[in-house]
Protein backbone atom coordinates (compact mmCIF):
# COMPACT_ATOMS: atom_id res chain seq x y z
CA UNK A 1 0.00 0.00 0.00
CA UNK A 2 1.51 3.37 -1.01
CA UNK A 3 1.70 6.36 1.34
CA UNK A 4 -1.34 8.23 -0.06
CA UNK A 5 -3.52 5.14 0.19
CA UNK A 6 -2.25 4.46 3.73
CA UNK A 7 -3.07 8.06 4.81
CA UNK A 8 -6.52 7.82 3.21
CA UNK A 9 -7.13 4.49 4.98
CA UNK A 10 -6.06 5.94 8.35
CA UNK A 11 -8.27 9.01 7.88
CA UNK A 12 -11.27 6.92 7.04
CA UNK A 13 -10.89 5.11 10.36
CA UNK A 14 -10.57 8.34 12.36
CA UNK A 15 -13.56 9.51 14.32
CA UNK A 16 -15.47 12.46 12.85
CA UNK A 17 -17.43 15.25 14.55
CA UNK A 18 -16.31 14.16 18.02
CA UNK A 19 -14.75 17.48 19.12
CA UNK A 20 -17.61 19.54 17.77
CA UNK A 21 -20.30 17.26 19.21
CA UNK A 22 -18.68 16.99 22.65
CA UNK A 23 -17.67 20.65 23.11
CA UNK A 24 -20.49 22.31 21.13
CA UNK A 25 -23.15 19.97 22.48
CA UNK A 26 -21.79 20.29 26.01
CA UNK A 27 -21.86 24.07 25.99
CA UNK A 28 -25.34 24.23 24.39
CA UNK A 29 -26.77 21.72 26.89
CA UNK A 30 -25.13 23.49 29.83
CA UNK A 31 -26.74 26.77 28.73
CA UNK A 32 -30.10 25.02 28.21
CA UNK A 33 -29.89 23.55 31.70
CA UNK A 34 -28.75 26.80 33.33
CA UNK A 35 -30.99 29.25 31.52
CA UNK A 36 -34.03 27.46 30.16
CA UNK A 37 -35.04 24.26 31.94
CA UNK A 38 -35.82 25.86 35.30
CA UNK A 39 -38.28 28.19 33.56
CA UNK A 40 -40.49 25.18 32.80
CA UNK A 41 -41.25 25.02 36.53
CA UNK A 42 -41.24 21.22 36.68
CA UNK A 43 -39.61 21.27 40.12
CA UNK A 44 -38.07 17.88 40.94
CA UNK A 45 -39.34 16.42 37.66
CA UNK A 46 -36.94 18.57 35.62
CA UNK A 47 -35.36 16.18 33.08
CA UNK A 48 -31.60 15.74 32.99
CA UNK A 49 -30.90 16.25 29.27
CA UNK A 50 -27.17 16.39 29.85
CA UNK A 51 -27.14 12.84 31.22
CA UNK A 52 -29.24 11.66 28.25
CA UNK A 53 -26.55 13.03 25.92
CA UNK A 54 -23.76 11.46 28.01
CA UNK A 55 -25.59 8.12 27.91
CA UNK A 56 -25.95 8.41 24.13
CA UNK A 57 -22.20 8.98 23.84
CA UNK A 58 -21.55 6.01 26.11
CA UNK A 59 -23.86 3.71 24.15
CA UNK A 60 -23.39 4.73 20.54
CA UNK A 61 -20.16 6.74 20.10
CA UNK A 62 -17.09 4.93 18.89
CA UNK A 63 -15.22 3.32 21.80
CA UNK A 64 -11.99 4.73 20.30
CA UNK A 65 -10.73 7.26 22.87
CA UNK A 66 -12.29 5.30 25.74
CA UNK A 67 -13.95 7.44 28.40
CA UNK A 68 -12.20 10.68 27.26
CA UNK A 69 -15.20 12.31 25.53
CA UNK A 70 -17.47 11.60 28.50
CA UNK A 71 -14.89 13.10 30.85
CA UNK A 72 -14.62 16.28 28.75
CA UNK A 73 -18.42 16.41 28.47
CA UNK A 74 -18.70 16.25 32.27
CA UNK A 75 -15.97 18.85 32.76
CA UNK A 76 -17.91 21.31 30.60
CA UNK A 77 -20.95 20.87 32.86
CA UNK A 78 -18.70 21.34 35.90
CA UNK A 79 -17.36 24.62 34.52
CA UNK A 80 -20.92 25.95 34.21
CA UNK A 81 -21.82 24.91 37.73
CA UNK A 82 -21.10 26.01 41.28
CA UNK A 83 -20.31 22.46 42.41
CA UNK A 84 -16.98 20.72 42.83
CA UNK A 85 -14.89 20.82 39.68
CA UNK A 86 -14.58 17.27 38.34
CA UNK A 87 -17.69 15.79 39.94
CA UNK A 88 -19.70 15.39 36.73
CA UNK A 89 -16.52 14.49 34.83
CA UNK A 90 -15.92 11.48 37.08
CA UNK A 91 -19.61 10.51 37.08
CA UNK A 92 -19.90 10.60 33.28
CA UNK A 93 -16.67 8.62 32.90
CA UNK A 94 -18.17 5.94 35.14
CA UNK A 95 -21.46 6.16 33.21
CA UNK A 96 -19.48 5.51 30.01
CA UNK A 97 -18.02 2.34 31.53
CA UNK A 98 -21.38 1.16 32.87
CA UNK A 99 -23.08 1.90 29.52
CA UNK A 100 -20.46 -0.26 27.77
CA UNK A 101 -21.32 -3.19 30.04
CA UNK A 102 -25.08 -2.57 29.78
CA UNK A 103 -24.83 -2.63 25.98
CA UNK A 104 -23.61 -6.21 26.13
CA UNK A 105 -26.73 -7.27 28.03
CA UNK A 106 -29.44 -5.00 26.58
CA UNK A 107 -29.99 -3.97 22.97
CA UNK A 108 -29.90 -0.12 22.99
CA UNK A 109 -31.94 0.03 19.76
CA UNK A 110 -35.11 -1.09 21.57
CA UNK A 111 -37.10 1.77 23.19
CA UNK A 112 -37.90 -0.29 26.28
CA UNK A 113 -34.22 -0.89 26.95
CA UNK A 114 -33.40 2.77 26.31
CA UNK A 115 -36.03 3.75 28.89
CA UNK A 116 -34.61 1.36 31.50
CA UNK A 117 -31.02 2.44 30.84
CA UNK A 118 -31.92 6.16 30.93
CA UNK A 119 -33.84 5.80 34.20
CA UNK A 120 -31.08 3.82 35.91
CA UNK A 121 -28.29 5.99 34.43
CA UNK A 122 -29.94 9.28 35.46
CA UNK A 123 -30.67 7.95 38.94
CA UNK A 124 -27.08 6.80 39.42
CA UNK A 125 -25.55 10.05 38.12
CA UNK A 126 -27.77 12.22 40.33
CA UNK A 127 -27.29 9.98 43.34
CA UNK A 128 -23.54 10.03 42.77
CA UNK A 129 -23.65 13.82 42.63
CA UNK A 130 -25.49 13.91 45.94
CA UNK A 131 -22.90 11.54 47.45
CA UNK A 132 -20.24 14.09 46.47
CA UNK A 133 -22.34 16.89 47.97
CA UNK A 134 -22.65 14.88 51.19
CA UNK A 135 -18.90 14.17 51.28
CA UNK A 136 -18.31 17.93 50.95
CA UNK A 137 -20.77 18.54 53.83
CA UNK A 138 -23.57 19.94 51.63
CA UNK A 139 -25.94 16.96 51.49
CA UNK A 140 -29.69 17.54 51.60
CA UNK A 141 -30.64 14.35 53.47
CA UNK A 142 -30.68 10.83 52.04
CA UNK A 143 -34.45 10.26 51.84
CA UNK A 144 -34.95 13.64 50.18
CA UNK A 145 -32.04 12.95 47.80
CA UNK A 146 -33.36 9.52 46.79
CA UNK A 147 -36.85 10.95 46.13
CA UNK A 148 -35.34 13.70 44.02
CA UNK A 149 -33.07 11.38 42.04
CA UNK A 150 -36.04 9.07 41.36
CA UNK A 151 -38.28 11.93 40.14
CA UNK A 152 -35.54 13.26 37.86
CA UNK A 153 -34.92 9.74 36.50
CA UNK A 154 -38.65 9.17 35.85
CA UNK A 155 -38.86 12.48 33.98
CA UNK A 156 -35.73 11.71 31.93
CA UNK A 157 -36.57 8.13 30.85
CA UNK A 158 -39.40 8.89 28.37
CA UNK A 159 -37.45 11.85 27.01
CA UNK A 160 -34.48 9.61 26.20
CA UNK A 161 -36.78 7.29 24.24
CA UNK A 162 -37.85 10.32 22.14
CA UNK A 163 -34.42 11.93 21.84
CA UNK A 164 -32.32 8.91 20.84
CA UNK A 165 -34.05 8.42 17.42
CA UNK A 166 -33.73 12.19 16.80
CA UNK A 167 -30.00 12.00 17.57
CA UNK A 168 -29.60 9.01 15.21
CA UNK A 169 -31.46 10.91 12.49
CA UNK A 170 -29.30 14.02 12.93
CA UNK A 171 -26.06 12.05 12.83
CA UNK A 172 -27.25 10.35 9.66
CA UNK A 173 -27.96 13.79 8.14
CA UNK A 174 -24.48 14.95 9.17
CA UNK A 175 -23.06 12.08 7.16
CA UNK A 176 -21.52 10.20 10.08
CA UNK A 177 -20.85 6.55 9.32
CA UNK A 178 -22.14 3.71 11.45
CA UNK A 179 -20.72 0.23 11.86
CA UNK A 180 -21.45 -2.48 14.40
CA UNK A 181 -24.06 -0.29 16.06
CA UNK A 182 -21.51 2.48 16.83
CA UNK A 183 -21.43 5.88 15.17
CA UNK A 184 -18.01 6.92 13.92
CA UNK A 185 -17.99 10.00 16.15
Amino acid at each position, binding site marked *: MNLAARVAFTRSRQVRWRGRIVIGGGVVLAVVHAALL*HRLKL*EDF*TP*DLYTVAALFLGLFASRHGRYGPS*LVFGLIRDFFS*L*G*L*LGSYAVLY*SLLHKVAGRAREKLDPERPGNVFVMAVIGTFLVNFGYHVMLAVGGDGVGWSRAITRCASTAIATGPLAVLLFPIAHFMLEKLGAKRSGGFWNI
Partner: protein
Amino acid sequence: MRRSEEKLSLSWLLRHPLVATCILLALTIALPYLRVGERLKLMTFLPLARASADVEQTPYEELEDEQKVRVDLALERERVSNLETENARLRAALSQLDALAQAAPGFAEAPLPAAVNARVIFRGDASTWRHCCWINRGRQQGVEEGMPVVAGRSLVGRVFMVGDGHACVQLLTDPGFLASCLIVDPDDPAIDPAARVRAVLRGDGSAMPHFPRLELEDVPAGAPVKAGMHVVTNDYSGQFPAGLAVGVVRETIPQAGFLQVRIEANLDLLTLEVVQVLMHKRPELEKEALALLKRKK
Protein backbone atom coordinates in the same frame (compact mmCIF):
# COMPACT_ATOMS: atom_id res chain seq x y z
CA MET B 1 8.27 -1.14 30.39
CA ARG B 2 6.12 -3.30 32.61
CA ARG B 3 2.96 -1.75 34.07
CA SER B 4 4.13 -2.15 37.66
CA GLU B 5 7.31 -0.15 36.94
CA GLU B 6 5.44 2.91 35.65
CA LYS B 7 6.03 5.98 37.80
CA LEU B 8 3.38 8.49 38.82
CA SER B 9 4.39 11.51 36.77
CA LEU B 10 2.71 14.39 34.93
CA SER B 11 2.78 12.46 31.64
CA TRP B 12 1.23 9.41 33.36
CA LEU B 13 -1.53 11.63 34.79
CA LEU B 14 -2.17 13.13 31.35
CA ARG B 15 -2.60 9.60 29.97
CA HIS B 16 -5.00 8.77 32.81
CA PRO B 17 -7.32 11.81 33.01
CA LEU B 18 -9.86 10.04 35.24
CA VAL B 19 -7.22 9.56 37.95
CA ALA B 20 -6.12 13.20 37.54
CA THR B 21 -9.74 14.37 37.88
CA CYS B 22 -10.24 12.21 40.99
CA ILE B 23 -7.09 13.74 42.55
CA LEU B 24 -8.39 17.24 41.74
CA LEU B 25 -11.75 16.37 43.27
CA ALA B 26 -10.16 14.92 46.39
CA LEU B 27 -7.99 18.05 46.74
CA THR B 28 -11.05 20.29 46.47
CA ILE B 29 -12.92 18.30 49.14
CA ALA B 30 -10.01 17.76 51.53
CA LEU B 31 -8.54 21.27 51.29
CA PRO B 32 -11.50 23.62 50.69
CA TYR B 33 -9.41 26.61 51.79
CA LEU B 34 -7.23 26.31 48.66
CA ARG B 35 -10.35 26.76 46.45
CA VAL B 36 -8.59 24.90 43.62
CA GLY B 37 -11.80 24.26 41.69
CA GLU B 38 -13.04 27.86 41.96
CA ARG B 39 -9.69 29.24 40.78
CA LEU B 40 -9.69 26.94 37.76
CA LYS B 41 -13.27 27.88 36.89
CA LEU B 42 -12.50 31.59 37.09
CA MET B 43 -9.63 31.08 34.64
CA THR B 44 -12.24 30.65 31.91
CA PHE B 45 -14.10 33.84 32.81
CA LEU B 46 -11.21 36.20 33.55
CA PRO B 47 -9.75 36.27 30.00
CA LEU B 48 -13.19 37.20 28.65
CA ALA B 49 -13.56 40.04 31.13
CA ARG B 50 -10.01 41.27 30.47
CA ALA B 51 -10.51 41.12 26.70
CA SER B 52 -13.55 43.36 26.97
CA ALA B 53 -11.60 45.82 29.16
CA ASP B 54 -8.54 45.94 26.88
CA VAL B 55 -10.36 47.31 23.81
CA GLU B 56 -8.47 50.43 22.72
CA GLN B 57 -10.49 53.63 22.87
CA THR B 58 -9.95 56.96 21.10
CA PRO B 59 -9.39 59.85 23.58
CA TYR B 60 -12.50 62.04 24.03
CA GLU B 61 -10.72 65.19 22.74
CA GLU B 62 -9.91 63.56 19.39
CA LEU B 63 -13.53 62.63 18.66
CA GLU B 64 -15.68 64.53 16.17
CA ASP B 65 -18.58 66.64 17.49
CA GLU B 66 -21.21 64.08 16.48
CA GLN B 67 -19.28 61.27 18.19
CA LYS B 68 -18.84 63.43 21.32
CA VAL B 69 -22.61 63.91 21.48
CA ARG B 70 -23.11 60.14 21.20
CA VAL B 71 -20.58 59.45 23.96
CA ASP B 72 -22.19 62.10 26.21
CA LEU B 73 -25.60 60.58 25.55
CA ALA B 74 -24.34 57.08 26.43
CA LEU B 75 -22.77 58.40 29.66
CA GLU B 76 -25.95 60.24 30.54
CA ARG B 77 -28.04 57.11 29.92
CA GLU B 78 -25.73 55.12 32.18
CA ARG B 79 -26.04 57.77 34.90
CA VAL B 80 -29.85 57.76 34.65
CA SER B 81 -29.86 53.95 34.74
CA ASN B 82 -27.69 53.96 37.89
CA LEU B 83 -29.98 56.52 39.53
CA GLU B 84 -33.06 54.43 38.65
CA THR B 85 -31.40 51.36 40.12
CA GLU B 86 -30.48 53.24 43.28
CA ASN B 87 -34.02 54.61 43.52
CA ALA B 88 -35.54 51.13 43.13
CA ARG B 89 -33.20 49.80 45.78
CA LEU B 90 -34.09 52.55 48.24
CA ARG B 91 -37.83 52.08 47.62
CA ALA B 92 -37.54 48.32 48.15
CA ALA B 93 -35.45 48.86 51.28
CA LEU B 94 -37.97 51.35 52.61
CA SER B 95 -40.96 49.05 52.09
CA GLN B 96 -39.14 46.12 53.68
CA LEU B 97 -38.03 48.36 56.51
CA ASP B 98 -41.67 49.19 57.21
CA ALA B 99 -42.59 45.50 57.32
CA LEU B 100 -39.60 44.69 59.50
CA ALA B 101 -40.24 47.69 61.76
CA GLN B 102 -43.62 46.18 62.66
CA ALA B 103 -42.18 42.73 63.23
CA ALA B 104 -38.97 43.64 65.04
CA PRO B 105 -38.25 47.32 65.68
CA GLY B 106 -34.74 46.60 66.97
CA PHE B 107 -33.59 44.94 63.76
CA ALA B 108 -35.13 47.56 61.47
CA GLU B 109 -33.11 50.28 63.19
CA ALA B 110 -29.80 48.45 62.67
CA PRO B 111 -27.85 50.31 59.95
CA LEU B 112 -26.70 48.35 56.90
CA PRO B 113 -23.14 48.60 55.58
CA ALA B 114 -22.40 50.51 52.35
CA ALA B 115 -23.55 48.68 49.21
CA VAL B 116 -22.55 48.33 45.56
CA ASN B 117 -25.44 48.04 43.10
CA ALA B 118 -25.19 45.21 40.61
CA ARG B 119 -27.25 43.84 37.77
CA VAL B 120 -27.91 40.11 37.49
CA ILE B 121 -26.42 39.14 34.12
CA PHE B 122 -26.97 35.39 34.23
CA ARG B 123 -29.22 33.28 36.40
CA GLY B 124 -29.05 29.52 36.80
CA ASP B 125 -26.62 26.67 37.07
CA ALA B 126 -25.89 23.73 34.77
CA SER B 127 -26.46 21.36 37.69
CA THR B 128 -30.04 21.15 38.94
CA TRP B 129 -28.68 20.70 42.47
CA ARG B 130 -26.86 24.03 42.70
CA HIS B 131 -28.24 27.58 42.57
CA CYS B 132 -26.21 30.62 41.60
CA CYS B 133 -26.29 33.79 39.53
CA TRP B 134 -23.68 36.09 38.00
CA ILE B 135 -23.53 39.83 38.63
CA ASN B 136 -21.74 42.58 36.72
CA ARG B 137 -19.60 43.83 39.62
CA GLY B 138 -16.29 42.36 40.75
CA ARG B 139 -12.95 43.03 42.39
CA GLN B 140 -12.56 46.40 40.66
CA GLN B 141 -15.67 47.66 42.47
CA GLY B 142 -14.45 46.34 45.83
CA VAL B 143 -16.45 43.11 45.83
CA GLU B 144 -14.83 40.27 47.78
CA GLU B 145 -15.59 36.62 48.41
CA GLY B 146 -18.11 35.98 51.19
CA MET B 147 -19.78 39.41 51.07
CA PRO B 148 -23.57 39.30 51.60
CA VAL B 149 -25.82 40.01 48.61
CA VAL B 150 -29.22 41.56 49.26
CA ALA B 151 -32.18 43.07 47.43
CA GLY B 152 -33.43 45.96 49.52
CA ARG B 153 -33.20 44.47 53.00
CA SER B 154 -33.83 40.86 52.01
CA LEU B 155 -31.04 38.30 51.86
CA VAL B 156 -30.26 36.90 48.39
CA GLY B 157 -27.02 35.01 48.99
CA ARG B 158 -23.29 35.56 49.28
CA VAL B 159 -20.45 36.20 46.86
CA PHE B 160 -18.83 32.87 46.00
CA MET B 161 -16.25 33.65 43.30
CA VAL B 162 -14.93 37.03 42.19
CA GLY B 163 -13.43 38.07 38.87
CA ASP B 164 -12.20 41.56 37.93
CA GLY B 165 -15.57 42.81 36.72
CA HIS B 166 -17.92 39.91 37.51
CA ALA B 167 -18.84 37.81 40.49
CA CYS B 168 -20.72 34.59 41.11
CA VAL B 169 -23.36 34.71 43.84
CA GLN B 170 -24.33 31.57 45.75
CA LEU B 171 -28.09 31.90 46.30
CA LEU B 172 -29.64 31.13 49.66
CA THR B 173 -31.35 28.09 48.13
CA ASP B 174 -28.03 26.40 47.28
CA PRO B 175 -27.35 23.31 49.46
CA GLY B 176 -23.95 24.73 50.41
CA PHE B 177 -25.46 27.94 51.79
CA LEU B 178 -25.60 28.31 55.57
CA ALA B 179 -26.67 31.30 57.62
CA SER B 180 -27.27 31.82 61.30
CA CYS B 181 -30.83 33.12 61.82
CA LEU B 182 -33.23 34.32 64.49
CA ILE B 183 -36.97 33.68 64.55
CA VAL B 184 -38.86 36.82 65.55
CA ASP B 185 -42.49 36.96 66.67
CA PRO B 186 -44.25 39.98 65.10
CA ASP B 187 -47.01 39.76 67.76
CA ASP B 188 -44.51 40.06 70.58
CA PRO B 189 -41.53 42.13 69.39
CA ALA B 190 -40.54 43.16 72.90
CA ILE B 191 -39.39 39.65 73.82
CA ASP B 192 -36.05 39.28 75.64
CA PRO B 193 -33.37 39.04 72.86
CA ALA B 194 -31.65 36.19 74.71
CA ALA B 195 -34.86 34.14 74.61
CA ARG B 196 -35.29 34.36 70.83
CA VAL B 197 -35.13 31.09 68.92
CA ARG B 198 -31.89 30.63 66.98
CA ALA B 199 -31.63 28.41 63.91
CA VAL B 200 -29.46 27.62 60.91
CA LEU B 201 -30.80 28.34 57.45
CA ARG B 202 -29.71 25.84 54.81
CA GLY B 203 -30.79 25.80 51.18
CA ASP B 204 -32.08 22.41 50.06
CA GLY B 205 -31.09 22.73 46.40
CA SER B 206 -34.54 21.88 45.08
CA ALA B 207 -35.10 22.49 41.42
CA MET B 208 -36.54 25.96 40.80
CA PRO B 209 -39.08 27.24 41.68
CA HIS B 210 -38.06 26.17 45.13
CA PHE B 211 -40.22 28.29 47.38
CA PRO B 212 -41.44 27.69 50.02
CA ARG B 213 -38.80 25.03 50.38
CA LEU B 214 -36.28 26.84 52.59
CA GLU B 215 -35.75 25.04 55.85
CA LEU B 216 -34.33 25.92 59.23
CA GLU B 217 -32.14 23.41 61.02
CA ASP B 218 -31.18 22.96 64.65
CA VAL B 219 -34.45 24.26 66.08
CA PRO B 220 -35.00 22.32 69.34
CA ALA B 221 -38.26 20.43 69.77
CA GLY B 222 -40.68 22.46 71.86
CA ALA B 223 -39.29 25.83 70.75
CA PRO B 224 -42.08 28.43 70.56
CA VAL B 225 -42.16 28.66 66.76
CA LYS B 226 -45.44 29.12 64.88
CA ALA B 227 -46.58 30.04 61.39
CA GLY B 228 -46.35 33.75 60.61
CA MET B 229 -43.15 34.39 62.54
CA HIS B 230 -40.39 36.33 60.74
CA VAL B 231 -36.91 34.96 60.10
CA VAL B 232 -33.98 37.40 60.08
CA THR B 233 -30.21 36.92 59.94
CA ASN B 234 -28.15 36.81 63.09
CA ASP B 235 -24.60 38.18 63.27
CA TYR B 236 -23.50 35.19 65.35
CA SER B 237 -20.95 33.94 62.78
CA GLY B 238 -20.00 37.41 61.53
CA GLN B 239 -20.83 36.33 57.98
CA PHE B 240 -23.96 38.49 57.68
CA PRO B 241 -25.06 41.67 59.43
CA ALA B 242 -27.95 41.21 61.86
CA GLY B 243 -31.47 42.00 60.69
CA LEU B 244 -31.52 40.98 57.01
CA ALA B 245 -34.97 39.63 56.26
CA VAL B 246 -35.05 36.01 55.06
CA GLY B 247 -38.70 34.95 55.09
CA VAL B 248 -41.79 33.98 57.02
CA VAL B 249 -42.43 30.68 58.85
CA ARG B 250 -45.16 28.70 57.07
CA GLU B 251 -45.08 25.27 58.71
CA THR B 252 -43.48 23.46 61.64
CA ILE B 253 -43.16 19.67 61.69
CA PRO B 254 -42.05 18.00 64.95
CA GLN B 255 -39.35 15.36 64.44
CA ALA B 256 -37.12 13.34 66.73
CA GLY B 257 -35.50 15.90 69.00
CA PHE B 258 -35.81 18.74 66.52
CA LEU B 259 -38.42 20.89 64.88
CA GLN B 260 -38.47 21.02 61.09
CA VAL B 261 -39.32 24.61 60.18
CA ARG B 262 -40.35 25.37 56.60
CA ILE B 263 -40.23 28.99 55.56
CA GLU B 264 -41.35 31.02 52.59
CA ALA B 265 -38.64 33.37 51.35
CA ASN B 266 -39.31 37.06 50.82
CA LEU B 267 -37.89 37.10 47.31
CA ASP B 268 -38.59 35.31 44.08
CA LEU B 269 -35.10 34.62 42.80
CA LEU B 270 -36.39 33.87 39.30
CA THR B 271 -37.36 37.49 38.72
CA LEU B 272 -34.46 39.15 40.47
CA GLU B 273 -32.71 41.74 38.28
CA VAL B 274 -30.93 44.21 40.55
CA VAL B 275 -29.10 43.32 43.75
CA GLN B 276 -26.74 45.02 46.17
CA VAL B 277 -23.46 43.66 47.46
CA LEU B 278 -22.96 44.78 51.05
CA MET B 279 -19.39 45.85 51.85
CA HIS B 280 -19.50 43.69 54.96
CA LYS B 281 -16.49 41.61 55.91
CA ARG B 282 -16.17 38.92 58.52
CA PRO B 283 -14.38 40.25 61.62
CA GLU B 284 -10.61 39.74 61.57
CA LEU B 285 -10.89 37.73 64.79
CA GLU B 286 -12.83 35.05 62.92
CA LYS B 287 -10.22 34.90 60.17
CA GLU B 288 -7.43 34.54 62.73
CA ALA B 289 -9.32 31.71 64.44
CA LEU B 290 -9.78 29.95 61.09
CA ALA B 291 -6.08 30.38 60.28
CA LEU B 292 -5.21 28.92 63.68
CA LEU B 293 -7.51 25.95 63.03
CA LYS B 294 -5.90 25.39 59.63
CA ARG B 295 -2.42 25.42 61.19
CA LYS B 296 -3.54 22.89 63.80
CA LYS B 297 -4.88 20.56 61.09
